[in-house]
């Protein structure tokens, strides 16, 4: 028998990294939010790797933070090691990665949710999204409770009809043995949603006491920790850190895998879901890269209050006995006792091309979807979609236009545009190479790019916004000054140049010009820059980057202008492509299916040629004119 309970504005299904950001954003914007989770003890759980950030993922965390999200603040609270990757490379690819205490991370996030006004948490499984006339009206749980609402954000992660597999063993559970959500898929199919099946996996965890670390290389954190959140300062965050450990597989490991490869469910056909190429299981690596005689293995602590260590680089779905034998061939793990086996997990997700850039289904009003349920993978990718879905569901209820970040504004924009425009045939992971305008989308300037938007949305406080404006002003003033200040070939200047192995000056130049020399930097010039005022470290960093890479930044900015031209040519939702004379058949089909929102988006759909775009432009001009 069904009961109808109180009405909420928005129901969020799932309290993983996407669900948490979505719920927090919408609640903070003043809407009444109900969050369902299959286990109230598993909020913001990290079922796989014990870290947040890393190459390009660190960028996403920074962007979520700049918009007023929680992930950056939460990892700053709970990290046990932190490292800025790629420091020897350019600033665009510097990436922050922090090892988390998983339990702490989950608890801290739970606390934030529990103490957020307008936000109610409920343990339970949603069985159905109620839709009338293609419009969301509420949700129904497995216990037949009905909660009316105006919008639903589905953040079901890897839980839909989840199945965990190793060898012949398969359990119909979500990650870590948590209950799977077995009902919602049917509802999605009934609603006409294109559902697909993906696969991912996780390695075993071993007992720290049984590892011989003397056979491994220690990997320490940075001496000076950089915060993820723009709201934190370095001083606040320095704490004792734990180490990770590096070891390698060897020929023996590979031999055991190859001898037992027929017992892997991936190869026997027992697993049908599509797995990610960037996160292959160890058996996949050994088969596909047969010429490599070893692969890296990282031992990472799962937290401060557990002996469990995560074996990064060796996810697997081989049978238990093979896992046993295989892990024990790795130097340092000879006697390791396995706490949890590695397993692969299969789950249902949706084809994301059915979504608008706002993350709302194109043809179901008020139904939003974010995170791994959209075919992405990774905690950070999930959080990034979550905050956007939360903001846009809230804006929908306020009658405002959605916030859509484009590819030149944020990695979040690249992520969402890739998902909804290109779709994905495997769990999608962010990479810096996916961002065309990488040099502009740095992790160090995420606040300069996005905090103003966060402020307009209402997630960034006035104080934080004003501090940002002040920072912007300081940066531009200082760049001006550097450009204006001329430097003569004085003794002091020549001495500094000589010390840094730089060519001596023949005639006068500006500070900005000197800074462009690879061997010099803003900091190094301070000796000869007598008028320099004391400026905050973040300001100095921006001045240094902006001047040093000026030529490259300008080139990317020019590319962005080109990109924006087509991006700003919007396609009315009412367009009838049958009416667009002389489109090629394939283009016609694709355009009808994807219904892109701009000519720019249309041009990125595979199967739409430049000639089709010309035809489309002509049509738009004619029909909707000037």
């Amino acid at each position, binding site marked *: 028998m069904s009961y109808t309970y109180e009405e909420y504005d928005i129901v969020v299904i799932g309290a993983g990294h996407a669900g948490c950001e979505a719920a927090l954003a919408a609640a903070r914007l003043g809407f009444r939010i109900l969050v369902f989770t299959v286990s109230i003890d598993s909020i913001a759980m990290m079922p796989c*790797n014990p870290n947040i950030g890393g*190459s*390009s993922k660190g960028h996403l965390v920074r962007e979520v933070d700049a918009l007023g999200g929680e992930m950056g603040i939460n990892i700053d609270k709970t990290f046990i090691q932190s490292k800025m*990757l*790629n420091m*020897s*490379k*350019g600033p*665009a*690819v510097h990436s922050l990665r922090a090892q988390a205490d998983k339990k702490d991370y989950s608890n801290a996030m739970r606390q934030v949710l529990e103490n957020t006004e307008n936000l109610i948490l409920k343990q339970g499984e949603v069985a159905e999204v109620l839709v009338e006339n293609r419009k969301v009206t509420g949700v129904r749980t497995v216990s037949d409770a009905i909660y009316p609402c105006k919008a639903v954000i589905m953040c079901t992660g890897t839980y839909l009809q989840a199945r965990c597999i190793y060898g012949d063993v398969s359990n119909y559970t979500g990650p870590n043995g948590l209950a799977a959500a077995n009902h919602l898929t049917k509802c999605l199919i009934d609603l006409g949603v294109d559902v697909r099946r993906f696969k991912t996996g996780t*390695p075993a965890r071993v007992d720290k006491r049984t590892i011989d670390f003397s056979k491994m290389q220690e990997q320490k954190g940075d001496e000076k920790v950089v915060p993820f959140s723009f709201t934190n300062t370095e001083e606040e965050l320095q704490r004792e850190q734990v180490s990770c450990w*590096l070891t390698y597989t060897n020929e023996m490991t590979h031999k055991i895998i190859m001898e037992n490869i027929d017992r892997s469910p991936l190869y026997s056909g027992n697993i049908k879901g599509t797995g*990610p*190429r*960037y*996160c*292959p299981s160890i058996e996949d*690596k050994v088969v*596909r*890269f047969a010429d*490599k005689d070893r*692969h*890296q293995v*990282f031992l990472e602590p799962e937290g401060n209050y557990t002996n469990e260590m995560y074996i*990064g*680089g060796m*996810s697997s779905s081989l049978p238990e006995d093979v896992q046993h034998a295989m892990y024990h061939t790795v130097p340092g793990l000879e006697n390791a006792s396995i706490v949890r086996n590695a397993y692969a997990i299969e789950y249902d997700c949706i084809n994301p091309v059915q979504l608008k850039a706002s993350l709302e289904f194109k043809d179901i009003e008020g139904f939003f979807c974010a995170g791994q349920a959209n075919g992405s993978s990774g905690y950070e990718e999930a959080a990034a979609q979550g905050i956007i879905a939360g903001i846009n569901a809230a804006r929908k209820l306020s009658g405002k236009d959605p916030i859509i970040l484009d590819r030149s504004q944020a990695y979040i924009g690249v992520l969402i545009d890739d998902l909804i425009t*290109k779709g994905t045939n495997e769990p999608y992971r962010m*990479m*810096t*190479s*996916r961002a*065309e305008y*990488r*040099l502009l989308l740095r992790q160090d300037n995420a606040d300069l790019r996005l905090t103003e938007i966060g402020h307009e949305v209402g997630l960034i406080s006035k104080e934080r916004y004003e501090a940002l404006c002040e920072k912007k002003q300081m940066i531009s003033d200082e760049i001006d000054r550097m450009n204006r200040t001329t430097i003569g070939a004085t003794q002091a200047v020549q001495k500094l140049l000589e010390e840094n192995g730089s060519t001596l000056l023949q005639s006068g130049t500006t500070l900005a010009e000197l800074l462009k020399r*690879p*061997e010099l930097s803003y900091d190094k010039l301070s000796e000869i820059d007598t008028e320099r005022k004391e400026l905050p470290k973040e300001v100095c960093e921006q001045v240094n980057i902006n001047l040093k*890479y000026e030529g*490259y930044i300008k*080139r*990317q900015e020019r590319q962005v202008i080109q990109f924006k031209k087509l991006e700003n040519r919007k396609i009315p939702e009412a367009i009838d492509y049958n009416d667009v*004379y*002389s489109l090629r058949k394939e283009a016609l089909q694709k355009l009808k299916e994807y219904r892109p929102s701009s000519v720019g988006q249309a041009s*990125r759909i*595979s199967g739409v040629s*430049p*000639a089709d775009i*010309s*035809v489309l*432009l*002509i*049509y738009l*001009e*004619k029909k909707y004119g000037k």
Partner: protein
Amino acid sequence: MQQDTIAGIASGMGGGIGIIRISGENAFLAAGEIFRTRKFIKIEDENRKDIKKTGNSKEWDSEFFLKKESHTIHYGYIIEDDGSIIDEVIVLLMRGPKSYTCEDVVEIDSHGGAYLVQKILKLLIRHGARLAEPGEFTKRAFLNGRIDLSQAEAVMKMISSKNEFALESAVNQLEGRVSGYIENIRQEILHHMGYIEAALDDPEHYDLENFSEELYGILQKKIASLKGLLSRFENGRMKSEGIHTVIVGKPNVGKSSLMNLLLDEERAIVTNIAGTTRDILEETVQIGNLNLNLIDTAGIHETGDIVESLGVEKAKEYLNQADFILFVVDVSQPLEESDDKIISLISGKKGIILLNKSDLSSCVDEEELKNKLGWDCISFSNKTGSGLKKLEDYITNSFLKGDIAYNDQIYLTSIRHREAVENAVKSLEQVLVTIEGGMPEDLYIIDMMDAYQKLGLINGETASEDLVNKIFSDFCMGK
């Protein structure tokens, strides 16, 4: 609204005159920069053919056209940057909105020849115009309200059907080889980008130590290859206009009259370029949809015994480069030693035997000839023109069947390709500058990707997912 300046060929290829159209905000200026009135030309020899240099052009005012009335016609010369004259032309000025595109438009009427027209176009591109996309003049005309949708669509359709034809046609074969060559270079660039990206994405797994030195060397080689391609462009331009066809035969068997017959005034003469020696005449004729680049070796043979003459080397060279050979035999005379010598020179190549003077009684054993060369015979008469149609069909069919192909050398055939390769070279050179400047590796990608995409234009490929796919296929990633 005026847009950036575009230039393109407005006349069809092969017409009597070649019209280059320029449209956009700097159309008048770009044209003014490459144009000189007669007053500014110093003619070193009154015989027009030998005009080499212009006089001082210091006083020339590049804004010449800007100061002229709209809808006026100007006579003068188009000159190269070094001052040499390209062609004698008539220039029409049309100020927007009273023009085809409603923008400032300049039309340059040149003497035709595809070669000259392309040369002028190239010059304009150096002077700030951009090569027009197919249909771009029409697009602008439409967007500026000059023509209506149905007109615009008709033109667009024509352009796309033309492309479809090109896909099936001969031109594609040649371009197929260019793309193969370019594709190899692209793939190598992609591989190295993949490596850099793999190292950026998974720095604990792949390192870039000493990589920049290695890459520097590799890119230098790629640049050299691409530059080689560019240097063959001029040659390729001519080449692409025709199947290299050489006419051989003993003296007085009717080679020259065959040439003349093929050059019948009804056919469009596409180019008319004097050969390297006075003795060799090279003409391009159109047969069906094909261009034949005809070379008559007449002069060589007439100097005397073919084996001993200095011309043999020359003839050999031409025969080596030939895609197709027309071997002319006079059937009214029996075969003799010099015919055998020719046969030994041309055996193994593609060609056809033309039995000339077939209106007279034959004293040549057709079968024997056929067997010697493995070629077909066509009876033919210069006098009556019989057999001409058969020859044309034969050439067209052989080409479509793929029996005749262009030479194996890789050539760039269109100015669009040239532009793409030039831009790619520029981008790769920029990578070298970045490496020399000690910049971090991730910055290499900006220009490498640019080069990769530019080269992709030649094959009509887009790059969107290539890099990501490459990373995964070539490098073992992830945890």
